[in-house]
């Protein structure tokens, strides 16, 4: 698990940065709030996304939830497993339930994101 190296948003996305690539998913807290995930609307490889833009959609039986891009850039990979097994987001949100990878746009700052400890404190308040 690389949760310790992950960065987090207030909208409950996680980001794992390796070089210029950011892998993105939703957190344990988010999947639990959402309930059974039954559909994931993935972005298309090659899409350009702005930081804060809704770039994927995760749906439970009851709710539709946007996934906001924690960083801007170009989508270079999506987790196609989620098309047939959306429940991976519930079962393994930080690992097998990853959603997409973005090639981070040049000059992107990651300063606004929380580290694991800060995020833990943040969801405690929520």
């Amino acid at each position, binding site marked *: 698990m690389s949760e310790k190296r992950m960065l987090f948003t207030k909208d409950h996305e996680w980001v794992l940065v390796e070089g210029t690539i950011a892998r993105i998913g939703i957190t344990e807290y988010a999947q639990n709030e959402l309930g*059974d995930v039954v559909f994931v609307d993935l972005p298309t490889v090659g899409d350009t996304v702005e930081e804060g833009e809704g770039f994927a959609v995760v749906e439970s039986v009851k709710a539709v939830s946007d996934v906001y891009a924690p960083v801007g850039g170009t989508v270079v990979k999506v987790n196609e497993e989620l098309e047939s097994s959306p429940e991976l987001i519930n079962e393994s949100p930080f690992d097998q339930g990853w959603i997409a990878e973005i090639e981070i746009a040049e000059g992107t700052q990651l300063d606004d994101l929380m580290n694991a400890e800060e995020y833990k404190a943040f969801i405690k308040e929520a």
Partner: protein
Amino acid sequence: MKQTPLTKVHRALGAKMVDFHGFEMPVQYTSVIEEHLTVRRAVGLFDLCHMGEFELEGPGALGALSRLTTNDPALLGEGDIQYTILTKEDGGIIDDILVYRTATGFFLVVNAANAEKDFAWISKHLPSDAVLTNRTDDLALIAVQGPKSLPVVEQVLNLSLGDMGSYTFLDTTYKGNWLRVSRTGYTGEDGFELYLPNAGAEELWQSLMAAGEPYGIAPIGLGARDTLRLEMRMPLYGNDIDGTTTPLEAGLGRFVKFDKGDFIGRSALLAQKQVGVSRRLIGFVLLDRGIPRQGYPILNEAGEEVGHVTSGTLSPSLNKPIGTGYVPVDLAAPGTTVYVGIRGKRLKAEIIKGRFLK
């Protein structure tokens, strides 16, 4: 937010609680899909204490009820229950309700969200020899639904209920207090709805949970209540029917008895019947990947918006995206292809006949 006599029980069970029309209600305990399948395969318990209950009594009760509703309450013998609809003069739906014929008059069960509105509407249209009493705040309602409901309810109430017909009820006592057993529900499965004074609700809930344990009973939240009713095409007020839709458009014509005499909305509905409805509530299965949701546009082959989705979900029993919505009559035939607009995409759907779950 209002609480029910069972709110504490739900919290102790770890339910996710939501504000449902002013009531703090459980939307799910573990998982909507698991709870849904529990009701289809075994038995589930629902807190429905938020529902509205009225008593209508007096010499003028029958006549008044017949004028207020589309179905015919004169068809009811004591112990019978009828699904019926309150309509406005223009035929628009005020609420869909259940009417119980009691020894002394009628017992009405109305949607929680409409209880105040219904009470005011009915009161306004009563003659001086009919009395309406609001029992909503005194009465609890627990539903037991699923193929294993019968042995659970029989054991707890110490009654033999196998011969009880669908849409009938009887009054009994439980722990010394009045309890009404009704063979009704909103899931399409066999089941019972139990009315009793608030004070006994928690004890009854716990007894049902204990008696149901060998059958795999589980508490069921509002999330699964919605998917269960939708698979059976039971309409939901506020989604599939409301003041802008008529019973004829919603496919509820069999509950409209034109021959019983005059009722509020009769002339408008009769005119609509003679001309023919211009749109109809249909059920569809989405063939492309996605989930239809209330408010999404329904499009024709040319891409023009012709209606909208009124209910939609992923069917837990079928594992398919299903929905309902209003479309023009020329697109309403089973087998017709329509499209649902989801986030700018046009997804293919096929209109189906009847229930999603056969």
